[in-house]
């Protein structure tokens, strides 16, 4: 068991991050922190992809480099996923600015109270 965890440390950290992110996303009443939680959750997934591509002692996939090679595909995928994540964060923060303008609060409960009064 300990052995397994020691050799799969990266995966362990990745899933720990996903857990922390999900907890923040659900548990925190603050909208900004929810978005941070969302980012942490996604970062966990990114790390999962990257660590899955790791090969001990391998070189980049260039013709001039000796084998074995690292697969470049997960890195490319995650570059795309990071761009997606940044756009999502931007849209989320834009929406939060509008919510704050409208309700004067970032806390879920207070926003709900103001909305119920309308």
């Amino acid at each position, binding site marked *: 068991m300990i052995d397994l965890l020691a050799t799969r440390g990266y995966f362990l950290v990745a899933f720990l991050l996903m857990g922390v992110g999900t907890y923040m996303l659900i548990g925190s009443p603050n909208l900004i922190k929810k978005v941070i939680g969302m980012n942490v959750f996604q970062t966990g*997934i990114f790390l999962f992809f990257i660590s899955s591509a790791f090969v001990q002692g391998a070189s980049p996939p260039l013709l001039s480099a000796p084998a074995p090679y690292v*697969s470049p*595909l997960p890195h490319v995928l995650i570059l*795309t996923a990071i761009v997606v994540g940044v*756009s999502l964060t931007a*849209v*989320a923060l834009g929406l939060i600015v509008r919510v704050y303008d*409208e309700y004067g609060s970032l806390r879920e409960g207070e926003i709900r109270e103001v909305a119920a009064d309308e």
Partner: protein
Amino acid sequence: MSSLPALLVAAPLLGSVLALLAGLVRSETGWPVALVTAAVQVAGAGVLASRAFDGTVSYVVGGFTAPFGIELVVDGLSATIALLVAVVSLAVLAYSRVAGPRTNAFYAVYLLLVAGLTGMSITGDVFNMYVFLEITGLAAYALVASGEGGRSARAALKYLIVGTVGASLFLLGIGYAFVATGTLNMADLSTQLAAVGYTEPLVQAAFALLVVGLFVKVAVFPLHAWQPDAYAGSPDSVSALISALVSTVAAYALIRIVFTVFTVDFLQANPVARSLLVAGAIVSIVFGSVLAVSQTEIKRMLAYSSVSQFGLVVGAVAVANETALIGATVHLVGHAVMKGGLFLTAGLIATATGAQTVDDYEGLIQRLPLGAGAFGLLALAMVGVPPAVGFVGKWYIALGAVEAAAWPLAVVILLSTLLTLAYFARILERMFFRDASGERVAVDGVSPGMTGVVVAAALAAVVLGMLAFEYGQLLEPTVQALLS
């Protein structure tokens, strides 16, 4: 090799940029740009559909041959969905010219949504599907937020957070499948996953993550929480567009993932996987209807109705035979026309009379005969009264469930007709058999375009029903290929 599939994604993207640039020159110029783009899109999707039914059309992006590069694959099913996306987006445009929102930014995002949805329906690569899923999501969040006031912003934020979790689970599922096989091409994945073994925990986990991620996007109970707020909080044209297309294309993606990537053999090897789908379907149908009955606001009721109708489609996926899948496709198309039409009619009624709740609809037939008639017709079509398209879809799905001897599901599917009637009967009774309670202020602002689209949707719901059996025969080879 035809480059039409790639152009079908590129055209709305280009239109989106043009709409934004036109806004720099003159404001409120987005609509004509969007109209031209949507018309081109309908023509392109039509040509593609006519070719795809003869044989699968595929396109290799950038010359990187599959399975290494991204491949666009169009069969009868994808062509149907791509054509549906194009036609519905053109129809909603006709509605939104007067109903608004009218800014150029709105139409730029509108076309971006069309690009994302088209991309999702024709891609043959799972990661590419994730990217298009997120483009669709981002555009949908922005469109929901285009309404006025704090309500739409809150709805959009909720949609964004829940939707992102769903898409991230989908991405994690792709990661698992990729770790197991080292490929992302759907056709290649199906053979590689079979080689790895369908009972491997890694493959099973990949399936669970992909399916649950898509459940969020389809809005299957209990992962539907974002959907009623998003539909009710957005402007009428937006709720019609996203209710007709976004969940529909996500359900298409579910069919693709389950049958093209994992295949029927996976479902046979893992009864638990099938139970997951059956459970999602039954819970969605029952609770979606029950929640719909308890709503007072029309748009929220229609939203919960979607939860229940998509339960039927998920049920058809769980049944996994030819008849049920034809039913799922017919119901996807039919639901898009009927639900989009219902949202547009609700918008038209709200614009003309200010009625937004179930009680406001009392005696509507006297005040707005056209609106009440169209709403009634579409509601009955949704319940499944023959010869409307809602009947054909449900008929095929129920028949499929009986053929597969999936009795609990078959009972719930037949029951769903009654449940649908339960929430629409309240409105039908109020609209046609009660007198209007007190005079209400007449708000007018109905354009010929709005009326035209509503009438067209109501007629389409009936006409498509008559064509649906022929379409089912046309689709048979595609579905057979999907199931083999």
